[in-house]
């Protein structure tokens, strides 16, 4: 069992990394010099970013109050600078550094989240107010991307299940559908197919009701002790640690409880590659690469490669395998 309820006063991972350390690391990431290399060979979209990165001041991240997670000795945290500079958020470009470079101006305050559909008490919630009153906790989770890399991230958030209870789901609520902000003016990937990787926006995701109600499933509002930076899905995003990262929809504006399985973005784009369930499963390969192992992005430089075996349900089988008993996971990937 990885997730333990810690005492409220336990030290958190956020306290273990001095801010000066990650601030200085972050300044290193800023600003790419021109260079014949950039001019000649950088992909066009990136080349533009190389020169624009300097003008975007990093979005302000506020410290959060939360119940700290107990350290998980078997997990090494991915350094904060890597968590916030290696992202898939195609609304801001398909390159791994595009989101950090292009999203800093995203207007995340105020932000409302609408919960509707098969609920007795639909409502629109002020997310920033919610952060202050709901009682946040830290969760140190493995994060496994479908692209076969992984991280360990100290999230701050709250259980989705407990949150949904507030709206009194009806007996017809079988699935939960999520939707990211649709705002082409702020999100270059939504304006331009080429920048946005051909995804049909707004980005949508979904969970089965029992998956959504599972205590491991959280809505995250922060990482490393502070509110999320835009590139990680500010101000509120989904984290389902036993599923591939693309299930963790970012910058959510709408949650709708529904009776039928909702469409999901990557499944619509390439159904033979990305399923609705997307449970981390080393036994079911992606058509173009093996899912049996993963490259862990930890501390250390380029040549400290750490290839490690991928665990069934990303290491959370004990907690969640029961949700899928009797299902053929090769068919429902």
């Amino acid at each position, binding site marked *: 069992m990885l997730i333990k309820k810690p005492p409220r006063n336990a030290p958190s991972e956020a306290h273990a990394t001095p801010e000066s350390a990650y601030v200085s690391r972050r300044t290193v990431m800023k600003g790419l010099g021109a260079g014949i*290399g950039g001019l000649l060979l950088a*992909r066009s979209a990136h080349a533009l970013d190389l020169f624009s990165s300097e003008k975007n001041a990093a979005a302000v991240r506020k410290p959060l109050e939360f119940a700290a997670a107990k350290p998980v000795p078997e997990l090494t945290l991915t350094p904060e600078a890597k968590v916030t500079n290696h992202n898939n958020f195609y609304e801001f470009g398909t390159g791994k550094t595009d989101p950090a470079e292009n999203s800093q101006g995203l207007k995340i305050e105020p932000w409302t989240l609408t919960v509707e559909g098969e609920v007795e008490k639909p409502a629109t919630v002020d997310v920033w107010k919610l952060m202050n009153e709901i009682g946040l906790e830290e969760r140190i989770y493995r994060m496994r991307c479908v692209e076969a890399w992984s991280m360990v991230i100290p999230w701050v958030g709250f259980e989705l299940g407990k949150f949904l209870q507030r709206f009194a789901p009806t007996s017809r609520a079988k699935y939960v559908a999520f939707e990211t902000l649709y705002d082409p003016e702020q999100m270059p990937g939504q304006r331009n197919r080429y920048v946005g990787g051909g995804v049909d926006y707004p980005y949508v995701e979904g969970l089965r009701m029992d998956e959504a109600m599972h205590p491991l499933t959280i809505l995250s509002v922060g990482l490393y002790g502070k509110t999320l930076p835009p590139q990680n899905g500010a101000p509120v995003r989904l984290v389902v640690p036993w599923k591939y990262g693309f299930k963790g929809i970012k910058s959510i504006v709408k949650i709708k409880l529904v009776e039928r399985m909702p469409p999901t973005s990557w499944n619509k784009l390439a159904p033979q590659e990305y399923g609705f369930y997307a449970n981390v499963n080393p036994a079911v390969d992606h058509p173009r*690469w*093996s899912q049996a192992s993963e490259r862990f992005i930890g501390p250390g430089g380029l040549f400290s490669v750490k290839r490690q075996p991928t665990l069934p349900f990303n290491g959370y089988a004990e907690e969640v395998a029961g949700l899928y008993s009797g299902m053929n996971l090769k068919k429902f990937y």
Partner: protein
Amino acid sequence: MGRSSSGADWRKPLAMTLQVGVHLGALLPLLWLFVAINQGRLGGDPVKELIHYLGMGTIRLLLLTLLVSPLAKSLHFGQLNRLRRPLGLWCFAWATLHFSAWLALDLGLDWSLIGGELVKRTYILLGFSAWLILLALAITSLPALLRKMGRNWKKLHGLLYIVVLLACWHFWWSVKSGWIEPAIYFAIALVLLLWRRASIARWLTSLRR
């Protein structure tokens, strides 16, 4: 046109300048890459970006290589053909770096995994085949071997047409989403191949003999 002695006067220095340009153009991005990675400029985890950068560079060098002969012919600028050898060799160097980065940095030199991926993933098999051909072309570009091989040299080096198609196909199948960029490269490759369809036809005929 262009055959006069006065024309030749500026053509030779121009060809030599272009040759220096090829070397610098292929080398400087690698130096930039080295510096950028060391300074953390490729983001939190540069492995994917590095592999893509090297792969894209390889495809661009391939297309440039393919451009030389028809350009030399239509401009009546035979000395341009001097660029083919350095371009081809740089292309092989970039392809080798691309392949090595995948082997060492992405898969961590896990040979059983690498073997499995080479066999199971068509797009990797395509890229690997392209690299093997480039390897053969690079080895046989030694002047001594060129002379020794005679007509067979041309037959072998016609395989570059296949390499270009394999590389574009490899790119096409490797992208996670967004078919536009690989489609553009495929289109450029097809235009270049069509431009030199006469040479390709001659190459194909020579293979039958």
